[in-house]
């Protein structure tokens, strides 16, 4: 396989992407929001291309699965172990969400395509299509205890400290509240699929 120059080039490119995304991701886990945003942006473009290749017959679903996967990556970020390849970790999550999609849509024929490990970061696609389901609307259906911490921090743009002051909760309660709320949001997305 390494004798194919095009493929070798793609492999080097993927390696560079892995390196850069991992760096940003680790910075993000340490609290660097700008680096984390760069990482999610980079992940989104690569995942979009990956999903579009995987789902040529379901392109209209790609943006939904992409958002679902990004939310899953975010909700699972504490399970990434520094030093391990980010590609393998993201790929496992993406494949899990893809399988979930296949299951709920019973498009079993698409499972016959083998899902390779090595092509996740090879191509990128920054051109989003419209998502069919609105995560924002699903957010509004969450109960207050899940919705409020998310709205204060994520939508109104308060810092965690400000949100804690504003809601009378401790900072770690706000953080845990957001974490639980986003997991509840992911569950809403699942049941709406």
């Amino acid at each position, binding site marked *: 396989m390494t004798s194919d120059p095009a493929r070798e080039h793609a492999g080097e490119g993927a390696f560079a992407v892995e390196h850069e995304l991992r760096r940003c991701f680790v910075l*993000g*886990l*340490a*609290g*660097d*929001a700008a*680096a*984390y*945003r760069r990482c*999610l*942006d980079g992940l*989104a473009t690569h995942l*979009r291309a990956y999903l579009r290749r995987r789902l040529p017959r379901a392109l209209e679903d790609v*943006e939904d699965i*992409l*958002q679902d996967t*990004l*939310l*899953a990556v*975010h*909700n*699972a*970020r*504490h*399970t*990434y*172990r520094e030093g*391990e*390849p980010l590609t*393998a*970790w*993201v*790929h*496992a*999550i993406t*494949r*899990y969400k893809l399988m*979930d999609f296949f299951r709920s849509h019973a498009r079993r024929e698409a499972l016959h395509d083998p899902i390779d490990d090595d092509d996740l970061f090879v191509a990128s696609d920054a051109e*989003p299509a*419209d*998502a069919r389901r*609105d*995560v*924002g*609307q699903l957010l509004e259906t969450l109960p207050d205890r899940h919705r409020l911490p998310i709205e204060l*921090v*994520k*939508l109104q*743009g308060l810092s*965690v400290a400000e949100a804690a002051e504003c809601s009378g909760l401790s900072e*770690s309660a706000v*953080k*845990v509240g*957001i*974490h639980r709320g*986003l*997991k509840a949001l*992911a*569950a809403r997305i*699942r049941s709406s699929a």
Partner: protein
Amino acid sequence: MKTDDLIDFLAREPAPPPGRQTERRRFSAGILAGLAASSLLMVGLLGLRPDLTQVSHTPMFWVRLAFPSAVGVAALLITLRLSRPGTRVGGSRWAGLGLPILLAWVLAGVVIAQVPGDARGALVLGHTWKVCSTLIAMLSLPSIVAVFWAVRGMAPVHLRLAGAAAGLLAGAMAAITYCLHCPEIAPPFWSVWYLLGMLIAGGLGALAGPRWLRW
């Protein structure tokens, strides 16, 4: 919501939440709570064996206790791996699960070889073979809930397998508590019926995994 807005929204809070979400705390809490609940169930429904103090001075009591303990440690190590996306369980962890089972069977074989042929069946069946595995599986139920709670704090992607490993861990925890009730001490007995009880719990976990562990 557009994907770009979603990213904006997620990137506002990059660091993972502190404390309770971390793996070690979550699994320690789950295992302690499961052991406590299964023990309470065991004491309440079955009771400690009356000669527990005397029998705890015999080496075989501790050998028997070591069997589910070793299976439990191995199942825990496998469960931890299966709780993270993109990691492989690895041959050594599977071997770690096989080893205590193999050793128990070797020990059972040695014990069986020492008794005359017509007494061997009785040694394997003991007095309680009809209920032993079922009771262990029953005691594992609260532990299954507790271990599943710990795994749900992580991000398993192979739900059936992760459920089976978590169930096996819960079964081992139940078998540990059952040791304090069980009157049988002969290796040919517990190397079969304890194992079966733990495997039933693993099977329950495999059934529950795809539903309870989804995220």
